[in-house]
């Protein structure tokens, strides 16, 4: 008998092997430009990244996929998968999300054996879908009977925890600072999740120019430890 809470602790672990350690989603550009250089500036970046990008893209997608799952509307889930892919204009960030999505899907499919995950994987092999971790995560939450709002909190936490680990390595920050940021980010996670609850599909896909440019510029960052 598995325990839902422990399953989600496992999924949110930054060691969960989906390749998150290779992606900074534009953070590395700011580190190279010396804009992000310490704990305070990293938290400013994290705040903007979640409020201006994650909220309207994978965060909102998570919520919409939960709704579609409740209504058993698979076509809407595949549509969200496409939207997540085509709205991501910086190539490295788009490909990074796809790689992580596919790895998470393969892993989840062997851990949980839900028919919908096998179906998703098949669609990707056929070139009909692309793969995104938000969708895989939402499916797992749904079948574990986790409330969408709670599931969204777990999902956002998994994104934050990965980025904090990457910041600790790249800026670098002390491990204690990393843990402090993680603890403080609960406030950010809660307020972003609350704001997402008020959004609809009409709010989907908004990006902030600066963040997007930093993700595009990463293609030309000279010395890099991340793929995006």
């Amino acid at each position, binding site marked *: 008998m598995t325990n839902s809470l422990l399953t989600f602790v496992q999924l949110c672990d930054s060691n969960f092997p989906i390749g998150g350690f290779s992606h900074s989603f534009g953070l590395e550009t*700011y580190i190279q430009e010396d*804009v992000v250089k310490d704990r305070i500036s990293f938290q*400013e*970046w994290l705040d*903007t*990244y979640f409020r*201006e990008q994650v909220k309207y893209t994978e965060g909102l997608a998570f919520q919409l996929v939960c709704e579609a799952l409740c209504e058993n509307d698979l076509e809407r889930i595949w549509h969200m998968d*496409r*939207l997540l*892919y*085509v*709205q*991501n*204009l*910086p*190539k*490295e960030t*788009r490909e990074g999300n796809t790689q992580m999505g596919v790895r998470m899907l393969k892993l989840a499919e062997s851990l949980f054996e839900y028919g919908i995950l096998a179906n998703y994987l098949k669609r990707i092999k056929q070139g009909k879908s692309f793969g995104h971790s938000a969708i895989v995560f939402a499916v797992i939450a749904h079948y574990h009977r986790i409330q969408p709002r709670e599931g969204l909190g777990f999902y956002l936490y998994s994104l934050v925890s990965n980025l904090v680990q990457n910041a600790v390595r790249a800026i670098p920050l002390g491990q204690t600072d990393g843990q402090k940021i993680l603890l403080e980010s609960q406030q950010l996670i809660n307020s972003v999740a609350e704001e997402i609850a008020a959004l609809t599909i009409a709010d*989907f*896909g*908004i*990006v*902030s*120019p*600066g*963040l*997007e*440019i*930093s*993700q*595009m*510029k990463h*293609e*030309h960052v000279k010395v890099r430890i991340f793929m995006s």
Partner: protein
Amino acid sequence: MQKEWTGELQLELTEKKNKTVPADVYFRGAFKVMRPIYLDDSGQLTYYLLNPGGGYLSGDTYSMDIRVNENARAILTTQSATKVYKSPGEPAYQYGKFTLKSNSLLEYIPDPLIVYREGSYKQLNQFYVDNTSTLICSDIITPGWSPTGKQFSYDKVDLQNEVFIHKELGVFDRVVTEPAKNNPSVFGRMEGYSHLGSMMVISPYMTDEVIENIYDMMEQKDVNFGISRCPVPGFSLRILANQTQIIEEILQMCHGYLREVWFGMSPVFLRKY
């Protein structure tokens, strides 16, 4: 049912003996086009769009339906900047539907959008593109002058572009700036700049070399920019700067470069001032 548009435009352009000619032109209300002109001897037709009302107000709605038929080549631009005035309540709204049939070319290069104090604007462009045709389009968002001299006095600009290739959504590009609500100087937003320029190009001729060449041309300019390959053949370019003129120069440079390498055509000068 859609209520009556404030301004409405329909254009259908067709190729005849290596020359692009209008097949259908209809406009009413606060949208108007001048007679088409030929800027060079390539047969490419250019339309200038006018807003006789002088500017967009709260609740105004504009609609454009532009069809570029097989092998036709066209430029659509504006006669002057689109001005959005104080719009309490409903934002001003513009919808554009652009259909590019096989082997066609559309260059949609409007003047800057100037949004004044408390102005709010939403734009949705849907491009239905054949995978043999080329689309070049651009946007510039400019904060209008405010009586207090304060930068960033407008409320909200929401620009959304959707590209469908053979009916499948291939690009979803949505930029929103809300300077009245969020401090635009915070990094990640406008990075301390006041003007945003964008160019989106969809083309079967797209290569990595094009990106590298544009990147090299851009690196000499004093702007913050990013360029990347789209989910479908093409690229997206974003520029942050403090002057309209700088962004216009860059967009014109990229536009001229693409015309030359892909179509062997010379650059065009669309501005009237």
